[in-house]
């Protein structure tokens, strides 16, 4: 007898969901929590070696104690950045990146846990120093109010067009290490042109975290952002 052949059919089941919805939900939860506590959260991103930690260290020295700040530092390993930032007196929580896809970015649930170690009632500003990487952190909302990208004049001028998603997602760019310009062939106008091409109108602050040049303009922008959130909340 011939064996029956199965009447095999394929059924398509609609799903229609964002793959990162778990992260997005958690990010919204973080955002609500920061809002309730009156905390302005800023996500600082860059490629490795752009001077992000020095920039934050010098920023903290200028804004504290008037603005009460804390820092969450994401790093693949080591506590070097956290140690440098702790010198400023700001509470620092170090997170070494975890299983959500490895070492390339901070995800919302990591920030949720790290925030437990900070007294949110006691701060106005939460700085989140993301992992040095211009690709993945752009994809992961962590519940921040603003995003800033740091790039430096020792990198290629074309970083903005190589990583457009990052530069589009951010609210401001810091072009660091401008004290080195006399020693380099860096075409600053070209770099700023690329930023404007990818994100027209985005503020670009030219700074040297080392010498302090340009820091006031960037800090002015930051103060204004913090102020407008707190004002909106008190109304």
């Amino acid at each position: 007898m011939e064996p029956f052949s199965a009447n095999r059919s394929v059924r398509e089941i609609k799903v229609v969901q964002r793959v990162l919805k778990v992260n997005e939900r958690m990010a919204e939860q973080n955002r609500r929590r920061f809002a309730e506590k009156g905390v302005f959260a800023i996500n600082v991103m860059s490629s490795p070696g752009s001077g992000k930690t020095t920039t934050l260290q010098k920023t903290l020295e200028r804004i504290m104690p008037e603005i009460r700040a804390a820092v969450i530092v994401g790093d693949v390993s080591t506590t070097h950045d956290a140690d440098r930032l702790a010198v400023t007196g700001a509470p620092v929580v170090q997170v070494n990146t975890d299983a959500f896809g490895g070492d390339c970015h901070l995800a919302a649930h990591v920030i949720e846990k790290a925030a437990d170690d900070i007294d949110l009632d006691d701060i106005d500003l939460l700085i989140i120093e993301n992992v040095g990487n211009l690709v993945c952190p752009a994809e992961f909302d962590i519940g921040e109010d603003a995003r800033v990208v740091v790039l430096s004049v020792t990198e290629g001028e074309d970083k903005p067009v190589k990583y457009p998603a990052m530069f589009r997602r951010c609210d401001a760019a810091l072009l660091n290490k401008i004290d080195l310009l006399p020693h380099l062939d860096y075409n600053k106008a070209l770099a700023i042109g690329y930023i404007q091409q990818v994100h027209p109108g985005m503020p670009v602050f030219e700074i040297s975290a080392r010498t302090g040049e340009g820091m006031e303009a960037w800090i002015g922008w930051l103060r204004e952002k913090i102020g407008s959130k707190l004002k909106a909340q008190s109304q």
Partner: protein
Amino acid sequence: MHEMGIALQIIDIATASIPPEMRSARVERVNLKIGKLAAVVPDSLRFCFEIASKDTPLAGAELFIEETPVVARCKDCGERWTIEEPIFTCQSCQSGSLEILSGRELDIVSIEVAEEDGYGAVQR
């Protein structure tokens, strides 16, 4: 770079989407929509998915990835076009005030599950 994390999320969402009466069925294909601005490398995602889906109802399933272009609309003049290069100013009026209509997707659209509904299916 985080394709393994994405693969794991896809497996979670797809597994949860299999109807209860089909729990023993095999998922043959997962249909995804991934925008060109999403930081995902399709080959790398397929590689991670193949490893991570072992011993799950998705083992051996094909990942079908529809890559969506970056489509923008100018908020000033209404021009609508596909962005091929990283230039985000309106091609018609040069305005920088754009709305990105597509290109950032990272969505599961559907799963395709094989049903064996012949009565003699397992007889030999």
